[in-house]
């Protein structure tokens, strides 16, 4: 029985892969960490440096522009509530984490989605991987992230970006595949290069669908960012975690409220963007 256990010791195999990576590809992860950290710091500064009122004003204005009065009013009240509950900087930290993870996610997810839409065999390989990624419990992503990037916000961003990647890949692929045949034919018939076709027809026509993917990715990222409070990513995740581990019910609850407000704001704004595009 033990021998069989040895043969099927997938966990140990995974462990040795990680070990090998940390020893041999050390420089690569250091480099990734450097890039992510730099970006994250920049974004963090952007959200934390101006006075909270400026940010609240900007957010409410954005909400008003794309999603209408109701959402704007909600944002105004919601963010003021966050401010006066005393969680402003934590919320901005979380927002920075989400923002960074989503930007990196798009940088990876869009090209991968486009590639998948171009090639049936690519999609055949990608699909089970995406399925796997989406069914894996969120916590599992934390383990390799910690092993490769230690503790702190960087592994938080990495785990988040991987966890939230599938929707944008899926929906980019779907959106481009759904572009009507005649539009493609029209592009070719008027002498479009493949690049022109992608930029002038496929991506714009697929944009509403892609935006739906971006919306889902943002929502997944937000949920993951909170979980990655467990590995010291900071922000609202930390607040909630403290609430749980130290049984501070008030803190846990307030942290939860902040997350909900942020989630609704992000969801409505990105969704409205999808809708205006669809028209």
């Amino acid at each position: 029985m033990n021998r069989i256990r040895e043969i099927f010791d997938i966990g140990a195999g995974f462990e040795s892969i990680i070990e090998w990576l940390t020893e041999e590809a050390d420089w690569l992860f250091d480099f990734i960490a450097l890039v992510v950290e730099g970006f994250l710091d920049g974004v963090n500064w952007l959200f934390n440096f101006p006075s909270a009122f400026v940010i609240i004003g900007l957010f409410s204005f954005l909400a008003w522009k794309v999603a209408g009065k109701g959402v704007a009013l909600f944002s105004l009240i919601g963010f003021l509530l966050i401010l006066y509950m005393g969680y402003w900087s934590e919320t901005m930290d979380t927002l920075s984490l989400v923002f960074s993870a989503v930007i990196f996610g798009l940088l990876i997810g869009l090209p991968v989605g486009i590639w998948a839409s171009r090639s049936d065999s690519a999609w055949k390989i990608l699909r089970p991987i995406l399925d796997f990624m989406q069914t894996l419990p969120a916590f599992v992503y934390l383990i390799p992230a910690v092993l490769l990037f230690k503790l702190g916000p960087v592994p938080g961003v990495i785990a988040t970006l991987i966890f939230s990647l599938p929707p944008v890949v899926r929906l980019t692929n779907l959106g481009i595949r759904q572009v009507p045949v005649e539009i493609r034919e029209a592009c070719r018939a008027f002498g479009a290069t493949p690049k022109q076709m992608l930029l002038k027809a496929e991506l714009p026509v697929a944009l509403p669908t892609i935006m739906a993917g971006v919306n889902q990715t943002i929502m997944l990222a937000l949920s993951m960012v909170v979980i990655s409070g467990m590995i010291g990513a900071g922000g609202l995740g930390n607040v909630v975690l403290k609430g749980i581990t130290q049984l501070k019910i008030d803190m846990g609850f307030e942290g939860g409220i902040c997350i909900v407000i942020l989630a609704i704001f992000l969801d409505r704004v990105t969704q409205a963007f999808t809708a205006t595009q669809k028209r």
Partner: protein
Amino acid sequence: MALVEVKDLYKIFGTNPKRAIPLIKEGKSKQEIKKKTGCTIAINDATFEIHRKETFVVMGLSGSGKSTFIRCLNRLVKPTAGQILIDGKDIVKMGSDELRELRRYKMSMVFQHFGLLPHRNVINNVEFGLELGGMKKTERREKAMEAITLVGLEGFEFSMPNELSGGMQQRVGLARALANDAEILLMDEAFSALDPLIRAQMQDELLDLQDKMHKTIIFITHDLDEALKIGDRIAILGPGGRVRQIGVPEEILSNPADKYVKEFVQNVDRTKIITAGSIKHSGPVLNSIKDGPKAALHLMETQSKSYAYLVDSQRSLKGIIHIEDVIELKKKKENDLSTIVRHDFFTTTPDTAISDLLGTALHTKYPIVVINEDNKFLGIVSREMIIAEVNEGVDESDTPTVFSEILEETEVFQNE
């Protein structure tokens, strides 16, 4: 040299399609080959020419390979075998750069479901082709505006496609195709998605445009009436992508090459196709300069008519003269026939369909005179000839009631 020459063209869909060609040559049917190889024959050994500035219509039922054929011409579909020479160059052998040139500057295409970009407004859609070719913004705006004016879309430049009706959307499609000033216009069932009234209107406008622009139009349709109306020449595709007949509309109607074409043609209303010009014949004509009453009476006698048409030496129509008036004139010993002309008759132009003459024919005493736009006498069309033409090609068994009604009415009229 013809503009487009299609030689031994085959298109077979499926994996390893070339192996189906020997089977086709053995005479196996489309179904048999499909069963054996899994390949679908879309075009089977097509050979023909398309001339400069003609409107060439390809017609056939759904699935007969029309779309495939027109897509071979701009290589959206790559032929399996054969040649397509455009200006003598074989486009089947062209690489992607050459093809792009061809598509940008030589030919453009109009699609059945318009194929417009939904995120662009009308003018941005129209200038799409020019933009792809890298033309500067101001220049392409200008060209796009010209095209928009041509198709009657002024005032809609900044509308989005989904705000327009089908007919208007197809105008955008047409303008886009006209904007790059290509010599060849490919139209794949361009009007099939429109409702009948708009469709007829678009057909008329296309004919008007073609009068001005003289493009080479290759027009696909599944509707024979449309083919006959628009086409200078028509190719009929049978099932399995075989060309059954190529000819001018009248040829197709009067000499169907085989049973398949004949069955097609039987459902057509001939009276809409046959024109006054094509059935006109000569009639009693007098020259106002040299002919006097004597010549007039002689002519009427030999042709046993009680009237004759008077023209001048340029054969311009002056009117009709009646035998009573001639006799009167002779009695008065006068010579000038032009003093007694009357105008109690009808005229028509050579391209008027005889269906449009039926009403007139029933109410005129004298044959209808065919004149051209300079008022030149070309010939006459009598009531009997029109009725005969209407009845031709109609089987005795299924004579439509309208025709018999017309005949009855005619009899009543004659008995009066």
